[in-house]
């Protein structure tokens, strides 16, 4: 900055001195020249000092940091004038609770969406009695291929109760309703489960405003084949492609 100022003043002083030669007393003008250069030097110095002081204090990050705002203005009892309810209309909700039975948030009801639930519409026996090693035997759910972990880790009876076909099963042999299936998943996938309860994993449906409604594990992952296939993007940037490669 001081350099710029100096050079412009210098050019200015040159301009004056050239005129001084054209007419008038050259001695008189040379003192003016000296004064102008001195003046330029002083302004340059002031400019330099200003530059130093302002650039060091710089833009204060804290004035505008959202983290500071969070610290200063957080409020755990916000009275919202909006709600996510209108956006989850028609979704039957089931509460997710913690160990103290406090409701944390909601998930969509699962059994309403299971095609052939309840199972006793077809099955009269417990699942444990239907297990057979005969490879030629007919399978009720022939289309389900278990593509989840390895055969050594999982079989049907790891998650489905062997006593009552309507229920899932936890590792401690407790039976659990299909609407609480996330508890079955959480036994192995505890990291994902913690992220899901916190809100970092899984999709929140409806709105950001309370009450929170999140998709549960099985809304996105097929429990029998939880990984996702590759697919085509839902759009291609055709204009950009044309720009890059015109016909």
């Amino acid at each position: 900055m001081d350099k710029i100022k100096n050079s412009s003043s210098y050019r200015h002083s040159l301009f004056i001195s050239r005129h001084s030669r054209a007419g008038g007393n050259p001695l008189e003008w040379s003192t003016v020249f000296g004064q102008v250069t001195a003046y330029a030097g002083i302004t340059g110095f002031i400019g330099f000092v200003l530059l130093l002081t302002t650039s060091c204090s710089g833009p204060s990050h804290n004035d505008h940091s959202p983290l500071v705002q969070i610290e200063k203005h957080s409020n755990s009892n916000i009275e919202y004038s909006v709600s996510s309810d209108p956006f989850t209309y028609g979704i039957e909700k089931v509460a997710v609770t913690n160990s103290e039975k406090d409701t944390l948030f909601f998930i969509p009801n699962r059994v309403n969406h299971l095609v052939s639930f309840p199972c006793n519409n077809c099955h009269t026996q417990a699942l444990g009695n239907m297990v057979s090693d005969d490879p030629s035997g007919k399978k009720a759910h022939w289309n389900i291929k278990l593509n989840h972990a390895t055969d050594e880790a999982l079989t049907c009876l790891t998650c489905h109760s062997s006593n009552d076909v309507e229920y899932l099963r936890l590792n401690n042999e407790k039976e659990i309703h299909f609407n609480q299936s996330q508890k079955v998943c959480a036994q192995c996938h505890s990291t994902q489960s913690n992220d899901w309860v916190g809100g970092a994993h899984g999709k929140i449906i409806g709105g950001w405003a309370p009450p929170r409604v999140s998709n549960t594990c099985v809304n996105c992952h097929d429990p029998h084949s939880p990984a996702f296939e590759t697919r085509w993007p839902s759009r291609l940037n055709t204009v950009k492609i044309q720009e890059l490669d015109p016909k």
Partner: protein
Amino acid sequence: MFFKKKKNVNEETAPQHTEKCGGDSCGCQQADGFDQVIKKPLDRRSALKGLTAGLLAGTGFLNSSCSVTAGDTDKELASLKWDEYFKGNYQLMTAEEKKATVARLEKMYALNNGGKINISDKGAAKDVLYGYAFNISKCQGYMDCVNACVEENNQDRDSQMQYIRIHEFKKGQMNFEMADDNFYHEVPAAGHFYMGTQCFHCENPPCVDVCPVKATWKEKDGIVVIDYDWCIGCRYCQAACPYDGRRFNWSTPHVPENELNKDQHYLGNRPRKKGVMEKCTFCIQRSRSGENPACVEACPTGARIFGNLLDPNSTIRWVIENKKVFRLKEDLGTEPKFWYFMD
């Protein structure tokens, strides 16, 4: 950066402040758009200039409004256009003025296109500061968010304007110059990861600082918005944005009538015109009624998280407090309210 003015830019208080002291007379802050245009002291030259410009614009309106041959619709349209032409900056409007301009815009749309649109002027709620988190482990490059954004926000279809960019990175680096934004293959591609960018709604937005007419500002709930009727299209904001967050309408935006989203907000997805800026508004028309932005709703992976930063029980707060997060170009001091994180 070095020449940045040492001034506490408080967007909320600035307009009232200048109004109270009557612009530049007391030397407190620079005059805003209204003061610059309406209250400026007139000399003969600028008065004549203003008169000529006004006459030029006015004769067009007058021609149709006073014409014997023009129909009632034309006259009504001309009168609405006249009022719209001389309205002020949205930030300085009173609640009644906001309602009036919204009503005029709705009426003008009805007269021009025969349909009905709803334009909201809903303001920021108390105790709300919007924030966004993006999980780069989860994003698969499906581009569903881009489609949803375009449909929701009525972007120009002809130029395929998009607020969101999905960048495909080869694993091992995160260099935006090496990223592929126009990938043309099944996703996710092996050995690649994906990352979305859009307007980050900085708490210290450089785009707002450079606007010469105060047509863009940060709302109380943290959303950076544009008054499309006050923007002069100088594109300073586009140059100032370090994140490529802003878009310009080089031609009159075109959205087919049957694809137009008719639930609109004055500061959001209402139809724009040629020569004005636009950008992501966190879907202001949705978010201010408690709904998630269209990109969050459309993302099938749950990579996008939106919420209130001031609510300790919100999911966005949980992500910031429990995951390892980062923001882009933090060293610039722009303070984006858009965090990236990994599983």
